[in-house]
């Protein structure tokens, strides 16, 4: 059998200077965290050889900076400026690696399709979906605009966006993330490519949407006999989709084999670590007395958003984001809050942190009412009791400040002034507590990796000794190995300092590993709550069941 794609001895290296540009260009996402700027010249892909047969799905897995995205981009010569590449890449025998820019442009989209992590930015926001798909066709073939639109309709039909639903006439912002990713797939599939490259195609999607997109990709690959190169950091996705897996570490392929073998009998220690981290083990034992009084009590919270006013003479429409949500967290307890995007998780967190007014309902912290309207001094006193860790380890720090100043920002809450020496001592103490070094206080956030930055965020939340810390998708931007370490750290800290966590995530694995009790949020309502294992073993509500079924899992 002849391979669709054969990569031999691929090397990619960067000059010293443009390295920073690569890190910036990479954008967000777990795969593109990018190393700290200023590193010397380095080889990011070393002697990589791969092959993909027709109809085969090859999973390329690895941590941030392992070179897996660079390998995928090298196929279409889409490397960032400053990259030098050697080796041979053949598509059905044709040598892509020695093609001119004009030749490779003809191959892109026609013979090799590509889809990216963020479907929102891959589409032109001002162009109707139908026109956008049709344009791809007209770039490569001389067809009438009518024929192109018909072809676009067929292609969108195949990815489950039928013409009757009016998808052709819509603009990208009118579609959900999953629908946008389907459009991107339709565009990639339009010319009947023999190879599809998918770089973290489902990382930005909800579990339920993710399951649908994965099923679609698998079906298309098998039906059309197309090779699929799936680049991801998520072994669970690989387990669902791939026939074969190649594991990359620091630019090299350390292990390759059938998916079943890699997951069950990994040989290389790195692969073993990855598989172990993907099978998240329970991080803590429940140690909360059920009778304890709640430290955080949320009663019947309703949040309405006002929509844009359509007419001067009509009252603006409103949208109910939260509809009577109640939840309670006891001292030292870890509570998970699960739900898809748009279910109201973020609004609820904002109300709990008193960053947003609730239309109805109340929040009490340590038995006292806590809301955005509280007076200054009382507000500060209450704020001390609840702190937050955010999702984005880059955006949650002012890049101009040193770690010491960042971590001591909440000291503003302490009425009595804290002396400089005292502040330095406390900062050093929390830094050590989260597994960093006291000397890190003088550095700036950009000098740290994503996982270390999340540790700094935890240190900042810990410094006022709060009763509750909220985590908004706090580990979803991290690699599996780093995620494992951070979750372990959180479990250890909870045991040490008796702090309660409210852990918000769409990732059920994470919630299961850390939470004592969970709440399931759907369209602004709590549809199910209970002890974690009880809910996972016997979910009552159909939505919970759907979520659990859609979550990709490794075979036990």
């Amino acid at each position, binding site marked *: 059998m002849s391979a669709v794609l054969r990569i031999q001895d691929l090397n990619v290296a960067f000059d010293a200077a443009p390295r920073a540009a690569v890190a*910036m260009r990479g954008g967000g996402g777990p795969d593109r965290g990018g190393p700290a700027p200023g590193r010397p010249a380095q080889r990011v892909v070393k002697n990589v050889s791969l092959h993909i047969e027709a109809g085969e799905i090859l999973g390329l897995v690895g941590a941030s900076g392992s070179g897996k995205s660079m390998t995928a981009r090298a196929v279409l010569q889409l490397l960032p400026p400053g990259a030098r590449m050697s080796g041979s890449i053949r598509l059905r025998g044709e040598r892509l690696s020695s093609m001119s820019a004009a030749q490779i442009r003809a191959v892109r989209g026609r013979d090799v399709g590509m889809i990216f992590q963020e479907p929102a930015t891959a589409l032109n926001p001002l162009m109707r979906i139908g026109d956008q798909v049709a344009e791809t066709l007209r770039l490569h073939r001389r067809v009438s605009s009518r024929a192109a639109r018909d072809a676009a309709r067929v292609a969108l039909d195949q990815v489950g966006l039928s013409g009757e639903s009016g998808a052709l006439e819509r603009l990208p912002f009118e579609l959900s993330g999953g629908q946008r990713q389907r459009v991107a797939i339709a565009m990639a599939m339009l010319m009947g490519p023999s190879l599809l490259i998918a770089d973290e195609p489902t990382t930005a999607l909800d579990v339920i949407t993710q399951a649908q997109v994965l099923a679609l990709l698998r079906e298309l690959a098998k039906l059309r006999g197309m090779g699929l190169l799936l680049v991801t950091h998520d072994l669970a996705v690989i387990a669902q989709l791939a026939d074969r897996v190649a594991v990359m570490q620091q630019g090299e392929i350390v292990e390759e084999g059938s998916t079943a073998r890699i997951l069950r009998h990994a040989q290389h220690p790195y692969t073993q670590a990855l598989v172990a981290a993907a099978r998240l083990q329970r991080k803590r034992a429940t140690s909360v007395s059920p009778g304890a009084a709640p430290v955080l009590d949320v009663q019947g919270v309703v949040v309405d958003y006002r929509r844009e006013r359509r007419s001067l003479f009509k009252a603006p429409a409103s949208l109910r984001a939260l509809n009577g949500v109640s939840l309670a967290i006891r001292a030292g307890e870890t509570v998970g809050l699960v739900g898809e995007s748009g279910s109201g998780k973020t609004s609820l967190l904002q109300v709990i*942190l008193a*960053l947003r007014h609730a239309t109805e309902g109340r929040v009490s912290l340590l038995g006292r009412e806590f809301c955005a309207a509280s007076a*200054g001094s009382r*507000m*500060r006193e209450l*704020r*001390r009791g*609840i*702190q*937050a860790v*955010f*999702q*984005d380890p880059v*955006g*949650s*720090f*002012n*890049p*101009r400040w040193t770690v010491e100043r960042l971590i001591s*920002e*909440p000291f*503003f*809450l302490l009425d009595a002034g804290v002396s400089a020496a005292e502040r330095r001592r406390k900062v050093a103490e929390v830094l050590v507590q989260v597994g960093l070094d006291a000397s890190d206080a003088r550095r700036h956030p950009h000098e740290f990796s994503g996982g270390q930055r999340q540790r700094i*965020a935890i240190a*900042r939340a810990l410094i006022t000794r709060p009763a509750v810390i909220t985590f908004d998708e706090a580990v979803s931007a991290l690699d599996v190995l780093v995620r494992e370490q951070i979750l372990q750290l959180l479990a250890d800290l909870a045991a040490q300092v008796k702090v309660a966590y409210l852990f918000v995530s769409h990732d059920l694995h994470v919630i299961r590993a850390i939470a004592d009790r969970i709440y399931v949020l759907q369209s602004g309502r709590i549809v199910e709550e209970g002890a974690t294992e009880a809910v996972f073993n016997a979910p009552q509500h159909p939505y919970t069941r759907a979520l659990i079924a859609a979550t990709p899992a490794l075979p036990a």
Partner: protein
Amino acid sequence: MNRRASRDWSLMAGGIITAGFGGLGLVAVFWTPYDPRLLDIVDKLQRPSRLHWLGTDQLGRDVLSLLMAGATTSVGVASLAVLIGAAVGVPLGLAAAAYRGVVDEALMRGNDLIFAFPSLLLAILITAVFGPGAINAVIAIGIFNIPVFARVSRAGALQAWTRDYTLAARVAGKGLWRISWEHILPNLFGVLVVQATIQFSLGVIAEAGLAYVGLGAQPPVPSWGRMLNEAQTLTALAPMLAVLPGIAMLSFVLGLNLLGEGLRRAAGRAP
């Protein structure tokens, strides 16, 4: 690489020209070759000579001294006007971005109101009401600068407010003003410096324009605009009297624009 070199070139040339005129204006505060107010009718309309490097005007004043003293007026009026605009406009912009909603609407519609008048017309209006003079020119030009700074800082601040660290600061209990000061304002520094340079060059032109129509600095305070006005009737007799202040103004504004452009690019390049 080529583009980078040209950026540095405009930054350097603009910097040198601007610093040159600024230095000239500063020196003129303490020393000029002759007293620019000294009339010497006997030596009127002289050609350049060793005694008067750029000649004398119709009242026998030394043109070089007039130009230097005019630079002082120009720099003084324009920089004070920029200061007024920034000192009032930036807090307004920060407040609009921090409070949003009604505050934002009210401030920005007020801005639009000032914007709706052509700037020079507004300045003429103010000086007509409060009387001509350098101080009133400063106020008139300063008022026109306010909405510009308010708008620029609001736009930058809105962007900065989307960062998670402002959320972290709110969770740390800091008020909107304090966050604006500590986290938002440093983000605006680059755009504000660029905007200040642009407003400065507009201020130079506005000062000269007001003086030209007789509403700016009054005699005997020297001003490039009034030099142009007075030279107008003598263009056939002594064209250099009009050309020299014209060249001074042109090159100063050119220098400021080059500097602004260079700074804008430098700010865009920095992380």
